[in-house]
């Protein structure tokens, strides 16, 4: 038994995962080298639980009915980034049902924004794209939303392309929790929800964000881009050209990028 410090463990897809009190399911899984797909989770910030990519099923049961048939009762679905790990718990992640749901989530994100990978500087290291590849998302399935969004090039070092925002709030949390600057926030509700900048003009150039800030380096997609650094890595050598996103869960958890 490879239990954690407290001698506690749970089962992820029948594999025993040790954990320490206070760890969430995804924290314990990533520490053990087990990948659970995620977009809005970041090891350094408070969990947000909004993208639902990391949804798992907890404690499914198999029962035998009176006529002798075996029936599986699905366990409750929960975001593994906000659910504390518990001793002896049985967690399912790589099931056909959950993989299908994750594909649908990625498809919905892809049609909601304007994600044109061929012209995006983030292509090849975009987490949404990497997840699409890894989950085998071949089609958008849904009609394109073709939302009309702006670009903010007012900052000397940083470009904002709102067309690709997935509302994960990683930049919001990085700016508030790490940089202590509160540069970003989400505004509006439902399909009018969008990312805004904390300045009177609403422009990024009028905020106090710097290119070295955490908030400027956590965007999992191609919204917050560093000017003069586009397409630096050639096609074929980019992060997800080299290895799929699930290949090295710790390495491919969102990390500060080299600027």
């Amino acid at each position, binding site marked *: 038994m490879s239990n954690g410090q407290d001698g506690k463990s749970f089962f992820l897809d029948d594999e025993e995962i040790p954990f320490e009190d206070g760890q969430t399911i995804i924290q314990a899984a990533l520490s053990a080298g087990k990948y659970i797909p995620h977009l809005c989770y970041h090891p350094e910030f408070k969990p947000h639980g909004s993208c639902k990519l990391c949804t798992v099923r907890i404690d499914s049961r198999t029962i035998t009915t009176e006529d002798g048939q075996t029936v599986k009762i699905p366990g409750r679905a929960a975001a593994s980034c906000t659910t504390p790990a518990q001793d002896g718990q049985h967690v399912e992640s790589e099931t056909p049902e959950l993989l299908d749901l994750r594909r649908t989530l990625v498809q919905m994100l892809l049609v909601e924004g304007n*994600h*044109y990978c061929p012209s995006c500087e983030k292509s090849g290291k975009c987490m949404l794209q990497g997840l699409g590849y890894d989950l085998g998302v071949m089609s958008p399935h849904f009609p394109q939303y073709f939302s009309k969004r702006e670009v903010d090039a007012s900052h000397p070092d940083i470009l904002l392309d709102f067309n690709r925002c997935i509302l994960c709030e990683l930049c919001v949390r990085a700016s508030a929790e790490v940089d202590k600057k509160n540069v970003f926030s989400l505004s509006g509700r439902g399909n009018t929800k969008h990312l805004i900048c904390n300045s009177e003009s609403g422009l990024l150039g009028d905020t106090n964000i710097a290119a070295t800030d955490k908030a400027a380096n956590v965007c999992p997609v191609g919204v917050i881009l560093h000017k003069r650094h586009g397409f630096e890595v050639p096609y074929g050598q980019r992060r997800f050209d080299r290895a799929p996103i699930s290949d090295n869960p710790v390495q491919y958890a969102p990390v500060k990028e080299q600027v």
Partner: protein
Amino acid sequence: MNAATPVRRKLKVATTSLAGCFGCHMSFLDIDERILDLVELVEFDRSPITDIKHCSPDCDIGVIEGGVCNAENVHVLHEFRKNCKILIAMGACAINGGLPAQRNSLDIRDILAAVYAQPGRGVHVPNDPEIPLLLNEVHPLHEVVKIDYFLPGCPPSGDAIWTFLTDLLAGRTPTLGHGLIHYD
């Protein structure tokens, strides 16, 4: 005497490029000499490769590059859907409109005015009846007709196209693993 072995009919494949750049067709030719293996299994019907102008009514597979940006694209797409048992959307433009769809956030009149404005001579938008009318938005194929399979990439690599087609011809659901599935 040997009983005559039944000869398997070659599958008919039609291809076309709508609002695309022919990059996917060029990539298709990147299967190189494997095209000789392919023509053992298929015959090309309407396609830029054969220059046949219309689909035979009994096509098995239609491969379409590019999205739908004008009235002619809509007609061609309907012709493919009517005559092909299986339709494949090949490449980023066919799948989500691709780069041409980036005009969707702009008013078509403004675009035409900006492109055809001549200094001092006003705006002369070409209006020859032979020129297909532009749609106000570029659409992916699946928003116009039922699409059976999607092959992403800009373009999909020759290897991806080869894997996809050979899977399909062998009766398998095509799957592209790491390195073959690309959105760019």
